[in-house]
């Protein structure tokens, strides 16, 4: 097979086509730009870049941020004032936040909410007002710019916020102390009403994103089977994915969903979704579904795997050993793209260790080919 560019390789695999080599890449937002990154890219590592394709306008909502110096450790209170009342959240920002790239700290961690927007029953009405008065405006410049910068080096993803229930559950109510489940039991009508309003108000955004010049549409869900039980997934997530995919597919776009948790309990339901790419899939020990099994159960899907951070902690030799075990369970290697990481910064040593394997992983993989690579880097 003729040698593909990094972009061609990633896109072909994402469209379930055969590629010359196993595509591997690094997410821009997690990448250490420097000598090792350049070396790995020269040896075949691609790039993936997420950017928004829209702006957000909240009508009749005033947002204020305050920092109380008497509170320890950079805690910011963000308040949303509306004619229906106000809601606030307290956010802790680690050093580096907004200093290198957006809301990531030097250690690549996003801020965490100490207090979330929905705590009391009366907060639902305010949040409903906010979602009903939120407008989305197309802005394709960020993606046009990154497409121009990337060229054949990689692919762009148009980002979306989490789907309505993921946002309500994970971001607005929160799972700490089981709060979401308790609200879902005690105030079911309010939760459902907010969910319905949100589904309706976000629909125009799906059209905007589908028309963007990005290659793939990315939904940053953080699906985790322990947190999102099968009944919740079936009721609130599956229908929304169906609705979204219909719009994206009509515009020829691939739909990727960030599923970085334990997925074993959800595997059959995920198989029923029209999602094209299961992004950030983590095999054991961090996830609970082996990669080989996931490829079998999701026959019509592509997996973008996130290399497990827990293995990186063990150093480059363990990384290599783990990777060879992984290669032995994935058959020919089709329908797979490996991301260096979807969560953390990777050390140069670990990134080079992975590159030394993947640069030689010509497809279709065979046991003989894997054994040759093993010998060549021993």
């Amino acid at each position, binding site marked *: 097979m003729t040698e593909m560019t990094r972009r061609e390789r990633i896109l072909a695999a994402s469209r379930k086509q055969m590629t010359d080599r196993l595509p591997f890449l690094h997410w821009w937002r997690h990448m250490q730009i420097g000598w090792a990154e350049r070396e790995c890219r020269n040896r075949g590592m691609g790039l993936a870049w997420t950017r928004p394709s829209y702006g957000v306008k909240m009508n009749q909502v005033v947002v204020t941020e305050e920092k109380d110096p008497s509170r320890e450790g950079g805690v910011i209170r963000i308040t949303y004032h509306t004619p229906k009342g106000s809601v606030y959240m307290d956010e802790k920002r680690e050093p580096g936040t907004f200093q290198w790239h957006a809301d990531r700290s030097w250690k690549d961690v996003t801020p965490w909410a100490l207090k979330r927007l929905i705590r009391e029953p009366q907060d639902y009405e305010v949040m409903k007002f906010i979602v009903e008065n939120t407008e989305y405006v197309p802005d394709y410049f960020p993606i046009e710019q990154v497409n121009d910068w990337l060229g054949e080096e990689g692919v762009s993803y148009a980002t979306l916020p989490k789907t309505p229930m993921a946002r309500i559950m994970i971001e607005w109510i929160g799972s700490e102390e089981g709060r979401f489940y308790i609200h879902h*039991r005690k105030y079911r009508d309010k939760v459902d009403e907010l969910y319905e309003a949100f589904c309706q108000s976000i629909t125009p955004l799906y059209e905007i994103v589908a028309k963007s010049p990005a290659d793939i549409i990315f939904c940053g869900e953080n699906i985790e089977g322990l947190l999102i039980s099968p009944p919740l997934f079936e009721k609130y997530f599956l229908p929304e994915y169906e609705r979204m995919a219909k719009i994206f597919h009509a515009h020829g776009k691939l739909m990727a969903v960030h599923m970085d948790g334990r997925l074993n309990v959800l595997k059959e339901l995920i198989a029923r979704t029209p999602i094209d790419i299961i992004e950030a899939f983590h095999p054991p020990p961090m996830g609970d579904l082996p990669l080989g099994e996931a490829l079998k159960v999701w026959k019509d899907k592509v997996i973008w795997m996130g290399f497990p951070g827990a293995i990186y*902690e063990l150093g480059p030799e363990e990384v290599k050993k783990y990777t060879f075990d992984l290669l032995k369970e994935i058959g020919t290697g089709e329908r797979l793209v490996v991301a260096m990481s979807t969560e953390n910064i990777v050390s140069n040593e670990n990134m080079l260790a992975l590159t030394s394997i993947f640069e030689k992983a010509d497809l279709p993989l065979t046991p003989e080919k894997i054994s040759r690579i093993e010998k060549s880097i021993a």
Partner: protein
Amino acid sequence: MDEGKHIAALKEAVLNMDYELMDKAAKEAMAAKVDPLKAIMEGMSPAMAFIGEKFQTGEYFLPELIVAGDVMKEGLKIIRPYLKEKGSQGEKKFLIATVQGDNHDIGKNIVGMLLSLHGFEVIDLGFDIPASKIVEAVQKHEPGIVGLSALLTVTMPRMGEVVKALKTAGLRDKVKVIVGGTSVTPQFARGIGADHASTNAAEGVEKCLEWARS
């Protein structure tokens, strides 16, 4: 007084995860002078243990476990004032915390809840807890087991700091240390000097029960 009827109502409230029924059943049971300890031990606890078992076998999921636990907590709020002062539940004390820099507490809460169903006295320090506070709590409560939780790979090293601090304070040999979270591995646990690594609650609970038996 039909004690059986009141006990059954308390049980039903937990099994059906029904806040209103719990409020009514607990108030009526206390008004009817049902022994509060019996109300807890024969009414709510077996129902909660049933939910816990279903969770461990995968028939129930986290929402059921959390909500049933919360319904039981509401009942305890009503019944507890009627209980005569009782001492500690004994030797099976388990202290648990999510380490500093990490606010993920679901795994920690599940382990705490399941262990309390198995008769452990659970001291839950919460999340984002510095090593010094964990050491202070170990000195104060003298648990047999310390559970440390972290979800993020960037906060995992904090678990090592806690083990080190326990050692410095001369407490390491007095407690078993179990670490949990999706990123932990047996190699990691060995590396930081913990006794066990667990990536799922059921297995972690089994290990604690094994230690408690030995």
